[in-house]
């Protein structure tokens, strides 16, 4: 079906629908792939925990593995929800609502982002336990401090990269949506 009415731009509707369906399928694939990847890592950690579980050793190591596994599961759910929130923008709402949602979606700090602290904390403690040498020669406190410094640096780099991406790509969108919203409501 071609909408090549003299008044309408010539768009091949069947081709467009085909592409849209492909995109829908690709989105679904991405969501499923991310989920599967996270579940795979979680199962991998579970297997590692089962294999390294040794009653003669303290509980730290398997507990660490379980924490990392749990962190991945929470991350998987969180990422899926974030992806859907970005992907499923409803353009059929009134303009003021669409703009208000865009402002909220693109603000640098999201209250929902605090949920990430839970898996981060689990991962921090889990990896700290998991990487500890139980031979009894290393100082647990020194290991803890060293691990916290490494973890903090990694997280700080991640936050910095995220902030730069937001500043370049999302802040202009937020500013524009905010300006339009103010203008409508003035």
């Amino acid at each position, binding site marked *: *079906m071609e*909408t090549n*009415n003299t*008044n*309408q*731009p*010539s*768009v091949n*509707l069947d081709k*467009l*629908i085909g592409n*849209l*369906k492909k995109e829908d399928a690709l989105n679904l694939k991405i969501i499923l792939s991310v989920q599967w990847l996270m579940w795979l890592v979680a199962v991998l950690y579970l297997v590692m925990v089962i294999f390294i579980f040794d009653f003669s050793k303290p509980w730290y190591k398997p507990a660490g593995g379980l924490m990392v596994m749990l962190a991945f599961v929470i991350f998987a759910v969180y990422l899926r929800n974030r992806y859907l929130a970005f992907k*499923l*923008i*409803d*353009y*059929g*709402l*009134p*303009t*003021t*609502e*669409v*703009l208000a949602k865009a402002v909220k979606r693109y603000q640098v700090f999201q209250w929902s982002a605090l949920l990430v602290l839970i898996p981060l904390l689990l991962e921090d403690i889990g990896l700290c336990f998991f990487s500890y040498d139980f031979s009894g020669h290393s100082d647990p406190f020194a290991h803890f401090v060293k691990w916290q410094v490494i973890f903090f640096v990694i997280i700080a780099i991640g936050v910095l990269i995220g902030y730069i991406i937001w500043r370049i790509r999302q802040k202009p*969108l937020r500013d*524009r949506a905010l300006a*339009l919203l103010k*203008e*409508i409501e003035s």
Partner: protein
Amino acid sequence: MKENKEERFKDLIAENGDRITRICRYYNPNTEDQKDMYQEILVNIWNSLDRFRGESSVSTWIYRIAVNTSLSFTGKAFRHMKLQIHDDQKCLTVLLDDDELEVKLKQEADLEQLQTQLNLLSVIDKALISLLLEGLSMREIGDVIGLTEPNVKVKIHRIKEALKNQLNGKPNSKF
């Protein structure tokens, strides 16, 4: 369900294609940009179709998508967005409800002047004017934009006054 969506989509486009085209024409001077925007609106209709529950009329929903897309679509040329009016535009007189101005409208030069003034409007005012030119009532415009009817009336009145002053050569602080 998917096939159902495809059928609904095709029906919507068949029924509202002209409406979408006109919105695209308001905002884009050249056919290539009109085509891009038309396609972008179709994509957004497809993506929002599953969430359309019929709370508003189909035409209001289509206008919402068209206006919201135009606001985001014009990101690439946001500041240069042109509101195109055409001399065959049936509702043009709604902008100029003054006898003296209606006479002026008959002249091509004045139409050009009107277009120039319209393009000095802010992007939101342009969106309001495009809906007014489409023949929507104040309440319908309010439903599309998300404003109350009195608020829309005030805004439209302000725009009309500003246009009138500009066309009469009076200075206007708004511009």
